[in-house]
């Protein structure tokens, strides 16, 4: 009786071992975690936000330009829109910030509004600051300009 129990325990352990071996090795799993579940990894150093104030080239004509400055603590909610303190029409001459383009004053039927269109109110929906980090996934984007050259 006792030996049977011991044997079955050994068998179970063996089975679970083989089951473990059959699982996909950690480096093949498409995960951001990269380490086993029971190990606390050292987090990578947080990359610094690009704050060079140099406007970046756009990759295609309709691209919302990326933000060339940090936006830490900039409040965008019903009460205040910090971005518009600098990017509104009234303040852009003085703040040296480019005024939001006219599309930001248009509703979806292309009517011009007197103030910022509600669909353009939450700036960070479309505009984001950049960090100097290794891209997590590859990117084979080809600029339209290059594409047209190749076609010729």
């Amino acid at each position, binding site marked *: 009786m006792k030996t049977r129990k011991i044997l079955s325990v050994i068998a179970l352990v063996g089975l679970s071992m083989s089951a473990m071996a059959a699982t996909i090795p950690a480096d093949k799993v498409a995960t951001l975690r990269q380490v086993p579940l029971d190990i606390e990894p050292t987090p990578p150093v947080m990359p610094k936000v690009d*704050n*060079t*104030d140099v406007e970046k080239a756009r990759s295609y004509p309709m691209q919302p330009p990326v933000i060339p*400055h*940090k936006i*830490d*603590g900039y*409040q965008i909610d*019903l*009460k*205040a*829109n*910090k971005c*518009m*303190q600098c990017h509104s029409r009234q*303040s852009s001459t*003085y*703040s*040296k910030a480019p005024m939001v383009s006219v599309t930001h004053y248009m509703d979806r039927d292309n009517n011009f509004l007197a103030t910022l269109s509600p669909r353009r109110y939450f700036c960070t929906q479309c505009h984001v600051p950049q960090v100097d980090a290794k891209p997590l996934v590859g990117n084979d984007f080809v600029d339209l300009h290059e594409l047209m050259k190749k076609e010729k």
Partner: protein
Amino acid sequence: MVASLLAKLKVIWGVIRRPSVHYSLGFLTLGGFVAGIIFWGGFNVALEASSTEEFCSDCHQNVYHELQSTIHYSNSSGVRATCHDCHVPHKWTDKIARKMQASREIYGQIIGTIDTPEKFEARRGTLAKHEWKRLKANDSQECRDCHKFDSMDFTRQSTRAAQMHSTALASGEKTCIDCHKGIAHRLPDMADVKDF
């Protein structure tokens, strides 16, 4: 001349030496002096105690929580600006004046102008405007207690910052609070605020 002066001094000395009822006036003066020091010190201690974050957050809980995520609470240099750095002037006389005004706050707590989050939100714009007015009037004195314009190295600032600081700030046309509203707290409704 000298004699009359000596006579006067004698009278004064007599007064000082004469026991009031139980103590000599000299003792009383000295005692008063010592008591004064203790009182002054105690007053100072009381002021210091009422200048802590804990004291203020008794009544300003939500405001305190907002501060914690800002650069003035934790930053790379480890210098923290707390409530009294921005809100209570460091000068002794101003300090007392501010404490006197603070009795209006305690009154406010009793009549409850901001004792619920809803009431605070409703009144927040008014209170913020008081602070902006005060900082505008004193040329952002509290900010300048820590941030000295003369010590600013524009070459180490971002282009955006240097551009503004070397022009509108340097010329005195604008002061810190004109451009840096909401640096420590969430902003109230800004719809009717000029320059925003």
